[in-house]
């Protein structure tokens, strides 16, 4: 019973992957490109930056970068708290 379930799940996932691979859109032609086209067309005039990725990261989606910086800050604080606790326990 367990083996039959395993085989059925395996076949289901394999069939899903085959269907997804055969119906995939051709490379370089995503389905929704309005946002990308807007960034590529207006980045050099609005933000005056040649690097569109930096323009998106720091200007259009700046709030997301703020979250990333917060994550790094939390990582530093976490490592500091972790190792400081170990050192105080050993003393």
């Amino acid at each position, binding site marked *: 019973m367990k083996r039959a379930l395993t085989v059925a799940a395996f076949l289901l996932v394999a069939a899903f992957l085959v269907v997804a691979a055969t119906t995939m859109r051709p490379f370089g032609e995503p389905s929704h490109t309005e946002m990308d086209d807007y960034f590529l067309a207006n980045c050099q005039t*609005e933000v005056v930056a*040649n*690097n569109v990725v930096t323009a998106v990261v720091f*200007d259009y989606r700046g709030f997301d970068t703020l979250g990333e910086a917060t994550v790094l800050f939390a990582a530093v604080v976490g490592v500091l708290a972790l190792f400081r606790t170990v050192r105080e326990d050993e003393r």
Partner: protein
Amino acid sequence: MNGGMSIIVKTVTRFVYALIIMFGFYVIMHGHLTPGGGFQGGAVVASAFALVLVAFGTAGLKGVLNRHLLQSLEEVGALAFLGLAFAGIGTAFFYNILANSGAVFGKTDPAVLASGGLLPLMNWAVGLKVMTGIVSILIIMIIGSREEAVE
């Protein structure tokens, strides 16, 4: 760990680490023109310090890098990033007030260094934050693991 690695590694590190730091600052400085930016350049600069730490050990570290100074600089970077984000609060959060203004970073030609408005300043802020953050993580972990090994 205190003694570091062999003389070959130490010599190569002496040759290379300044170049790595310079390349990292180049990546940060040209973040709005070429691939890269504050995060990537900061990680490159931090990798140079990691190389020095691995090659020379923690013995040569004392007096060169101050952990509290590094953490203060990280908070300066974070606050500078937040302040630059609040600079355009009159229009919107993260509004780029300097772009196309004709002022310091407001050149209208997108291919020169003094363009991009707040983007280069934000790159510097985030780069400072990332490099000092990763270096302080490295120092804290190395100090912690060394004391565990000693005691």
